Every structure is written in structure tokens, then in C-alpha cells.
């Protein structure tokens, strides 16, 4: 038993004591053990270079990491893109200023109420545009055509037309802007008209009119535009504008024969009956008319 322990110790590369060494040397198999141990070296494994082998394996292990990196970066880009798309969507949903347009066709009238309860009545073939956002802070409305405003009290209220700007503070007034023709009638309160860098103030019952660039002032005793009650009233207005208004109200085409369209006309016509209306505008001017479908011809008798 002691012998075996000594052999174990020797095999474990431990230093033997003098006694143990002596005992070991007297053992039966000592010479054989030594020879076996010595000759084992002849069976040594081939040389193995760790750095060399590591270099070889790196060719296989490198791409692995790259793949995992590229997939994660694509994912990252997708995430960023998704946030951008979401943001753009939110912007258009919540922050974009929506413009509201209201318009009328020939022989049509319409009323609309603005966010602050201001009433707007549109005559035929007219349109208004305004932005709903911040309306109470910034009351601006674009007008093309003819409209009557009953403005709620509040901050300044601008009506912007291609001819000029009308600025008021809680009042009732009508604006008519047609080709070569711009007219503002104040029915209540005070209206300020900005026309070609000049400011005019209109008290209640005043009319501000520009015909072909010529400014004129007059007065009215009406409290509302007549067209609201389906009647067009004119006061010393060139005849051509009466005819154009007539065309808008009845959707007809008027041609004239040798008639001076610059003659002034005072009178009115109704919007409900074309025969009566035609008589209203021809008899005072000593004219006669012929009607053929949507075509009306005016002539001297």
C-alpha cells in the first residue's frame, strides 16, 4: 500500500523525500516505470500554436458579429422613421390651420355664422374665406363679391377684398366688390375703409362707392341691404352694373343694342319674378326687351 502511494506521488510530479526515493528505487518495477515515463515523450502530440490557430478561427467568427449589428441598425432606422411619420401625421391633424370657404352660385343667396356669432349673408356669385383657428384673436375674412355683415362685438374685424380693406368694431354693414366696382354701406356703428392708402370713416347711413377708380360718397336711409329681402335697389348707378346684377340674380345673358350703359339709373328690381324685374329696369329707361330662353336683348323701340 505504501508502495502505491509513493508511485502516486511520483506520478503527480511531486518531489519525493530521500526515504521515499530509496524505497521507490528498490521497487520491482522501478526501471520499467522510469523507461516508460522517459519514452512517453516520443508520442508527443504535434506542435500546436495557439496564436496561429486563433488567427485561423477569426475568419469564421468575424461576420457573426457584423450580421447582428446590421439587423439592429435597420431596426433603429425603422423606429426613427416611424416616429417621423407619426409626428407629421400629428402636425397635419392638430396644428394645420384649416381654411373655411363659403360660396354662392348665380341666383343663390346664403347665410353663414362665424365662430364669434358674426352673421354673414352672401349675395349671388360671392365667396368668403376665413381661418377658424384663433378666430376670436384675429378676425379676418376675405371677400370676393357682395356680402352683408352683422358683426359681433369684439376686437377689430377686417374684411379683405381685392379693392380695399374694411375695418370695423361691432357693426352692421354691406360690402360689394365686383369688377371695377367697390361699395361699402354702413348701416350701424362706424366703418373704416382702407382704399388705396386712404382711410375713410363712414358713419351709419353712409355709402362709400368706387366706380372705375372714382370715389363717391352718398347716404342711404335703409337699415339693411335690399337684396336680403330679394330686391336690388340702385341709386344713381351706371346702367351696366344694374345689368350685371340682373344677370347674377336670374342667370341670364343680357345683350344690348345701341344703349349707353354709362347712364345713371335709380330704381330697383325684384329677384322673384323675371318679367316684373325686366319691366322695372326697362320702362324707366324707355327700352323694350325680348327674351329667348336664357338670353335677353334690350333695344330702343
Amino acid at each position: 500500500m505504501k508502495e502505491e502511494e509513493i508511485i502516486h506521488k511520483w506520478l503527480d510530479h511531486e518531489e519525493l523525500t530521500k526515504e521515499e526515493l530509496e524505497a521507490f528505487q528498490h521497487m520491482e518495477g522501478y526501471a520499467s516505470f522510469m523507461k516508460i515515463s522517459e519514452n512517453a515523450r516520443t508520442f508527443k502530440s504535434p506542435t500546436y500554436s495557439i496564436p496561429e490557430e486563433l488567427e485561423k478561427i477569426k475568419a469564421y467568427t468575424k461576420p457573426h458579429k457584423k450580421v447582428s449589428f446590421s439587423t439592429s441598425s435597420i431596426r433603429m432606422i425603422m423606429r426613427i422613421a416611424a416616429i417621423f411619420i407619426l409626428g407629421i401625421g400629428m402636425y397635419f391633424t392638430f396644428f394645420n390651420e384649416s381654411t373655411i370657404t363659403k360660396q354662392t352660385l348665380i341666383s343663390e343667396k346664403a347665410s353663414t355664422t362665424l365662430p364669434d356669432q358674426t352673421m354673414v349673408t352672401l349675395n349671388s356669385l360671392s365667396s368668403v374665406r376665413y381661418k377658424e383657428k384663433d378666430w376670436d384673436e384675429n378676425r379676418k375674412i376675405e371677400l370676393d363679391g357682395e356680402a352683408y355683415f352683422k358683426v359681433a362685438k369684439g376686437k377689430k374685424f377686417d374684411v379683405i377684398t381685392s379693392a380695399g380693406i374694411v375695418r370695423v368694431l361691432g357693426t352692421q354693414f354691406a360690402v360689394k366688390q365686383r369688377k371695377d366696382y367697390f361699395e361699402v354701406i354702413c348701416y350701424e356703428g362706424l366703418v373704416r375703409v382702407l382704399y388705396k392708402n386712404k382711410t375713410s370713416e363712414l358713419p351709419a347711413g353712409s355709402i362709400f362707392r368706387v366706380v372705375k377708380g372714382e370715389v363717391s360718397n352718398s347716404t342711404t336711409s335703409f337699415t339693411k341691404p335690399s337684396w336680403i329681402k330679394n330686391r336690388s335697389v340702385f341709386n344713381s348707378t351706371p346702367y351696366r352694373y344694374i345689368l350685371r346684377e340682373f344677370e347674377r340674380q336670374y342667370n341670364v345673358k343680357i345683350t344690348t343694342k345701341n344703349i349707353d350703359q354709362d347712364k345713371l339709373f335709380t330704381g330697383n328690381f325684384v329677384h322673384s319674378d323675371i318679367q316684373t324685374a325686366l319691366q322695372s329696369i326697362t320702362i324707366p329707361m324707355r327700352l323694350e326687351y325680348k327674351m329667348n330662353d336664357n338670353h335677353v336683348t334690350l333695344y330702343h323701340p
Partner: protein
Amino acid sequence: MPKDLFDNVCEEKLFSELFQKHAKNLHDFIYYKYGEHVDAKDKVQEAFIKLWDNCQKIPLQKAKSFLFTVANNITLNELKHNTVKLKYQQIAHPYKTNENPEFILEEKEYLQKYQNALAKLTEAQRVAFLLNRIEGKKHKEIAEILNISRKAVEKRIYGAIEKLRKEIDRI
């Protein structure tokens, strides 16, 4: 038991360290176990590549046993249809200078016997014995490499040298 700092071995630096630590032992283990006709270098490479491909699933603690198991299995798969033939490379003794023909013949005969005796050892005995005698490893180190107890290593090596002595001396 302290918790492992790394739950996988995907880190390249960690992988290199593992290679430096285990590659040589793994190579020797395969070589002494199966002999020269198995390309031990190749098996080491394959085992480490497998480790890298599966790095997500393997904690650092399990890496060594994974490598040894995989290398062993790869080698066994290759040998499946061959009977294991053990042949060891012979290296001339550089330290022996007195070379009379008789001695050389004797020496050659002895090594032949040695070779046959080694082939008759069990794989377990052979690996432990050669790691001990050739690579100069202590029992404790071999126990770590093979994942067995120190006592078992002692037994295998002692068994191996006794068996070799009997084989060589008898004939």
C-alpha cells in the same frame, strides 16, 4: 455559488480568452484519445466555431464542457465507420548520441511494444496518462480538464502505468 458575470460568450474578447485557455488542452485531449489519424487541429476549430455560432445560448461556465463534448462528438461521428486504429508519431531521441546498431534496433523494438501497449489502454487511461507524462500536468489540472475527480485521475494514471509495464515487460 457566485453568479457568472457573462451569461453568454458572444463577446469577441471573451471568446479569444476561452480559446487561449482551452484550445491546447482540447487539442491534446483529442490527439491522445484518438491518435494521429484524426486531425485534432481541425476538431478544435470546429468545436470553437460551434461555440461561436451558439454563443447566445451558452453561459461562460458551460463553455469548456461544451467545447470538449462537441469536439469529442465530432471525432466520434467521423470514426463511426472505421475501427479505431491507433498510431502514434515517433520522434527520434535527440538526446541519445551513442548509436550502435544493436541499440537502435532494441530501441525500435521497445517503442513498437510501447505503441501496442498504449493502444491497449482504455481511452480514459491513455488520455490521463499522456497528459500527465508528456504535457507534465499534475493530477489536479487533469481533473479540471476532464471534469472528473482528482482521485479518478490518480486511479487512471496508476492503472495505465501498471498496465503498460506488464504489457511491455511480459513480451
